[in-house]
């Protein structure tokens, strides 16, 4: 069975170990700016929301790629960028409505979460199980909405 990243912002303490782990796993250094998972901070509510690609079914990035550089890994279900094929045109970065495909100026290629090939470093690093890698039941967009729905208590009352 395929597994997917599940994020529970309620459990996130904002320690940013996921960002460090992602950067180290994928870039070889501890540079949160290079992380493919990003923790967003809601100061007023004292909340932290880890956020990354959900490998959504629509795969806007894959659809938009003009050179067939993004393909699904059928083992993990992740949409993966083939660095050899990517020309760095950035069309995927504007087509992804979740903002989770980004351009890396240093390499001239785009980067996105590839579930670390089936062993996501962010989930392993998370000390509070805010990020877990579990059996996939919900689809991408539903998952996204599920955790997006927990991001702002303030608006729920207005």
């Amino acid at each position, binding site marked *: 069975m395929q597994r997917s990243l599940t994020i529970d912002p309620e459990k996130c303490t904002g320690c940013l170990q996921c960002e460090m782990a992602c950067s180290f796993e994928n870039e070889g250094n501890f540079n949160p700016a290079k992380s493919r998972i990003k923790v967003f901070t809601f100061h007023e509510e004292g909340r932290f929301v880890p956020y990354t690609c959900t490998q959504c079914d629509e795969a*806007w990035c894959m659809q938009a790629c003009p050179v067939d550089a993004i393909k699904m890994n059928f083992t993990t279900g992740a949409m993966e960028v083939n660095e050899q094929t990517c020309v760095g045109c950035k*069309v995927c970065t504007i087509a992804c409505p979740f903002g989770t495909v980004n351009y890396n100026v240093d390499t001239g290629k785009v980067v996105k979460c590839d579930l670390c090939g089936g062993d996501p470093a962010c989930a392993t690093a998370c000390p509070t199980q805010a990020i877990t890698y579990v059996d996939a039941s919900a689809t991408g967009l539903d998952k996204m909405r599920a955790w997006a*729905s927990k991001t702002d208590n303030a608006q729920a009352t207005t």
Partner: protein
Amino acid sequence: MKHLIIGAGPAGVVAAETLRKLDENASITILGDEPEPPYSRMAIPYLLIDNIDEQGTYLRKDQDYFKRQNIDVVVGRAESLDPVNKTVKVAEGDSLPYDKLLVATGSRPIKPPVPGIDHEKVTSCWTLEDARKITSGIQQGTPVVLIGAGFIGCIILEALVSAGADLTVVEMGNRMVPRMLDEKCGSMLEAWCQNKGVNVMTSTTVTAIEPKGDGVLVKTSDGNEVEAELVISAAGVKPNADFLEGSDVKLVDGGIEIDEFMQSSMDGVYAAGDVAYGRDFSTGEFGIQAIQPTAVDHARLAANNMHKHGSIRHRGSVLMNVLDTMGLISASYGQWEGVEGGDSAELLDENNFRYIQLQFDQDRLVGANTLGMTQHVGVLRGLIQGKFHLGHWKQKLMNNPLLLMEAYLAATQAS
């Protein structure tokens, strides 16, 4: 069922693939008028700069891909349509029959009405053939004039400069990329290029191109004369629908008018991509959106409706563009010029070439321009297409437009 697709660009190829997924037995033919396998014009700038070879521009990399998909790719130019016999006449070839026809012929460069534009030293930058001509025509120090600082002109600047061109850019508008970037953004882009040694002349037109020695003399509206060994004309594009003139397929502004099922005014004839006069998501109005994401959107919807008419409605495509001009990245979305009675927010860091402006209609995001941003840009699409009510987050964005991701995470709660 015989599906005939005219045009071997992204729209044609995606439509063919979608049709194959929907019907494993259908006959699917792509008719393209260039000799190479289907390729992406989007990749040409990266070919010019030598990051990839020609194969790197191909839409599908596997040589046998189309064969394995049982999709026939035929080289030839559509000459006319015979709707009675349901055939398309191919120039210097046979007629191809169809049950359902998709016109995905894209667009072609406009030839500006300038005396001398047909000189052999003048080329467009549109096809692989053009790319070869540009590559072989530029050595270290070659004087080059680029007509037009629109999307194509800007995206090839870096390649031209790194190939050694001594470059002059002549743009009719008062700034660079006037149809995608606002005045501030376009002007900053111009300053960026000037800093990098490119001579950019805005609010200027080319008035004549005259032979001079081995090259040409380019005369401009401000009285200047620039010698060039190569002139690249990138003055915009227009839809390739001429072969339908005189037919019953209705054309508007040169494009094929389509309905919400991507069908033209003629039953069984559909259109997708640059050639289609289709619906804009933001305005609800019809027009031409000559961009990659729209071509792919159109193609998938058209294929579904060719397979089963009425199966999927087109709600409109969001206008979006991203452009890398000598390393400075700009993007535009939707109604970036703003809407009547709407609000706008901006953040400007001129020294560092960073800029973002957001356009709101009440508490919804409807458009944006960015400069120098590479992270989470796509969420602008999410906010615009989701039509999310931002509530009190609108004010937060007005105060700090960079809180886009936070606003998105907060706003998606409603759905």
